[in-house]
């Protein structure tokens, strides 16, 4: 599988893996056909302006090199961003940051974005519950 140098480097030094001790958003996605499963944990806190910031983020991924590299890179990108900004991220950002992905691995970048969005959804649904 011809991976870009950046993919290989990212895979070599994965960041932000393992379950977060404290989190208020969990996103689980999976693709049973390929077998990739991604779980993203986020810890969201409000700053002084009342913006919701992703203070911490981590992943647990059962997947190939592309899935692991996508998970690592997107958690790096999203960390410290406001939820508003994070929701603007797309798989194109993941692919760009990784210096490209082989065509049959594009879905791995999509999964990473989906996992992030699901974690945010989960956070929102919990927030609502708390407000009620």
């Amino acid at each position, binding site marked *: 599988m011809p991976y870009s140098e950046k993919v290989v480097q990212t895979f070599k030094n994965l960041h932000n*893996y393992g379950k977060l001790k404290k989190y208020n958003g969990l996103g689980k996605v999976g693709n049973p056909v390929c*077998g990739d499963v991604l779980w993203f944990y986020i810890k969201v806190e409000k700053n002084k302006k009342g913006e919701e910031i992703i203070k911490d983020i981590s992943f647990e*991924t*059962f997947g*190939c090199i592309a899935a692991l590299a996508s998970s690592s890179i997107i958690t790096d990108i999203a960390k410290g961003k406001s939820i508003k900004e994070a929701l603007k991220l797309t798989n194109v950002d993941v692919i760009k940051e990784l210096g490209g992905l082989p065509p049959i691995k594009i879905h791995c970048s999509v999964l990473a974005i989906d996992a992030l969005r699901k974690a945010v959804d989960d956070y929102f649904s919990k927030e609502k519950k708390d407000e009620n």
Partner: protein
Amino acid sequence: MRIYLDNAATTQIDALVLKEMLRFFDRDYGNASSPHKMGETSMEAIEKARIILAKSINAKNDEIVFTSGGTESNNFAIKGIAFANRDKGNHIITTKIEHKSVLNTCKWLEKQGFEISYLDVDEKGLVNKEDLEKAITDKTILVSIIHGHNEIGTIQDLKVIGDVCKRHNVYFHTDACQSYTKTEIDSRDADLISLNAHKIHGPKGVGALFIKKGTEIDVFMHGGGHERGMRSGTDNVPGIVGFGKAVEIANIGEMRELKSRLIKGLKKIDKIKINSQGLPHIVSATFLGIEGEAMVGVLNLEDIYVATGSACSSNTLELDQTLLSIGLTPQEANSTVRFSLSRFSTRKEIDRVLEILPKIVEKLRKISPF
């Protein structure tokens, strides 16, 4: 240290094989069909190799046809029998665990009006004799079943399968590319046997098909009538010479001992499943919770070269049918890694792999949600 444990994919050429081949590139490079001394030298070298191959499977010399490799041999055997025996029937029986060169040939034949039955196997990868018996109809012309399996190392009993085919007067082809020289093959058990060189420390680009005398088969490669009209194309003299030498000096070395050593070490790792069977060089292991390609990738960074047989490893995203056929779940199939040995593998290499694996497993399991 570079550790190559992907010998089921291909092997290093043996130095003696290479040495034997070299003069046929630059000194004795005559076309074996040419009617002069240089042609004769090449022809003699080819015939010498043919005798070695024939003897190795208890066949007659003129039952061996040289080809470009295992894929061609499988295509030749299956298509050749199919089209030559169309008047007798259009039904072919194979299994769900064949090599792609058999499966995709069969799929193509389905488009040409042939009907194919794909037999299931048991949890060891073995074909059931009764299942085969039941699948044979009066339209059946060919049974094609892999001998030694490339992923899980299952060895089918050629005699048992061959006897069923004989009794029903159906041709029997077996793909023996992975088992050749690693376990005994007797040509009396089959009508067609695919063989190749690069899995046994010979060169790439050369194989052979054993075709039992009297077999009705269509020629696959048309041209100048080489190989007694059975397979045209200028003879690959260095390749054939190398193939002969590789067979002559083939031995399984310490493969069995190293395989046991590797399996014993692997079993010490938590949540692991060993899938491999009889072939002396193949160890298939499922590391639960770890995706196979990730494992192969990390080992690659350590200069240890192994293979996956599963979905995300190859060029397609299809799930591995063999592993599913022997009862693995899709997730287990995706967590499977194949280590394959050669006679050049060493105890030191196995020990190094066993030393490094637990750390890799621990890290990858930490990353995984399972």
